[in-house]
C-alpha cells in the first residue's frame, strides 16, 4: 500500500484525506513486523474459538464474553470457565506441534516455488545472472 493525500477541489478549506492505495509490491518490512504479532493473536483467538466449541459440544450454558486475552463471566460460573480455558490452552499445544507444522508448510512453499530447484541437498533460486543458494533456516530445537 502507498499513502496518497487527496484534497477536495470544490471545498477550498477542507482538510486533505489520506487514502491507502494498493500496489503490486509486497511490503516485507511490514510482513516481518506483523508476522509474530499475527501468529500470537491467531493463537489467542484459537483459544477462544476452541473454548466456545467446548462449551457448545459439552452442552454447557455459560455466560462468557472475551476481550482477546481477557475472559468475563458471572462470578458463579467463573471457576468452570477458568478450568475450561486451561484445558483448551493445554489442548492447543499438547495435541499438536504447531511450530513443526508451520515450518513444514512454510518450507514446502519455498521448495515448491517454480524458480527454486534442488541440487544435492541444497536449494537454489533461479536468478537472471547467477543462481542464488537459499539458506533455508532450520527450526530451532524445542523439547
Amino acid at each position: 500500500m502507498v499513502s496518497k493525500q487527496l484534497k477536495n477541489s470544490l471545498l477550498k478549506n477542507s482538510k486533505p484525506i489520506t487514502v491507502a492505495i494498493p500496489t503490486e509490491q509486497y511490503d516485507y518490512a511490514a510482513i516481518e513486523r506483523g508476522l509474530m504479532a499475527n501468529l500470537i493473536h491467531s493463537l489467542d483467538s484459537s483459544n477462544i474459538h476452541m473454548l466456545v466449541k467446548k462449551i457448545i459440544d459439552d452442552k454447557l450454558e455459560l455466560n462468557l464474553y472475551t476481550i482477546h486475552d481477557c475472559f468475563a463471566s458471572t462470578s458463579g460460573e467463573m471457576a468452570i470457565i477458568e478450568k475450561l480455558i486451561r484445558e483448551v490452552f493445554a489442548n492447543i499445544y499438547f495435541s499438536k506441534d504447531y511450530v513443526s507444522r508451520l515450518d513444514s508448510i512454510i518450507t514446502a512453499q519455498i521448495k515448491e516455488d517454480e524458480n527454486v530447484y534442488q541440487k544435492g541437498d541444497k536449494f537454489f533460486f533461479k536468478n537472471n545472472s547467477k543462481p542464488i543458494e537459499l539458506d533455508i533456516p532450520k527450526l530451532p530445537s524445542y523439547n
Partner: protein
Amino acid sequence: MSHDSKFWLYRNILNLARLYKNNVLYVPCFMDFRGRVYPMVSYLNYQASDIARSLFCFKNSTGVDINYLYIYLANAYGKNRLTRASRIKWAKDNYADIYNLYINKPGEFKDKYLVNSAEPAQFVSCLLSIAKYNINSKHQLDLNSIRTPVLFDATCSGMQHLSALTCDMEIATYVNIIAGDEPEDFYRKCAEAVIEVIKKHDDHDLRSKLLSIRIDRKFIKQSVMTIPYNVKLESMTKQLTDKFETFYVEVSKDTKKLYFKIPAALTVDNKEHILTGREAGLLGSIVYKTVLSIIKPVNDYRNYISKIIKIFKLLNKPIF
C-alpha cells in the same frame, strides 16, 4: 485523552446506556483475519473503556461465588499482583470501610478509594454487586439477580503462547502457565534483570545515571511487551525515551546535541536527571538485550522467522 474528548466519550456511553437500560441487547461482532472478535458498535460495548464495561450485566446468572467478586474488587482496585488468597483477604478486610464511605461519605470514598482504583467504574460496579449479595443473602432474596461480569486477564498472553510453543518451562513459570505459590510477574523479572545488568556495567558514570531511573515493571512493561512481537531496538528505545522530555543544546554553529530530561516521578531520588542521546540509546540496548536473553528460545524463533521472510522476499511471494 483531552478533557473534551473524555467528556464526549463518557456522554455518548452514558446516553446509550440510558437508552438501553433494563433491556436485553446483543452486541454485533466481527472477526478479523486472525480470528480475533471485536464489537461492531462504538462507545457502549463490552470491549470499550472502563465505564462502558462497568455498565453491562449478563442476562442470566446461576448463582454467586463471592470469592470471585472479592478477587475482582481487588483487581479493579489495582491489587492484581497479589495472590488470590491475599486479594480475597484485602477485599474482605476493606469491604466494610469502602461500602460505608461510598454510602455515607462519598467525598472521602472518592479520595481514598475511587481515584486510586485501576478501573474505578468497574470497582464501583463490583462493590455494589457485593453489597447486593450481602443484602440478598441476609434476607434470603434471589442471588441470581447478581449478574455482573467478572473479568480475568491473562498474565502476559503473548509470552504465554510463545513459551508453550517453544516448550520453555522457565518462561512458562514467569507468565504463570505453571502455577507457583505466588503469582509471577514477568515484567518485574525483566526490570530486576535490567537493573542487575546496569549494576555490572563498566562505565561508572553511565551506571550511576541509569540507576537513578526508577526501572520497575511500569517503566518497562510497554517496551517488553512488544519485544516478542519482533519490535526492533530503535522502536523499543523510542518507546522508553518517549517517557522523557527531549531537548537540544547547540554545541557548534551547525550542530545540536540531543538530551533527555528524566522527570522526577521516574527517578529513584525524585529529582530530575539528564541523559545524553547516547546514554538513552545504551539504556534501550541494555533493556533489549537483557529481555532477549531471558526469552532466548523465543528469540531463536524470531530469528528463524526473519530468515524465512528474507527468502520470501527473494522469491517475491507472500507467506500464507
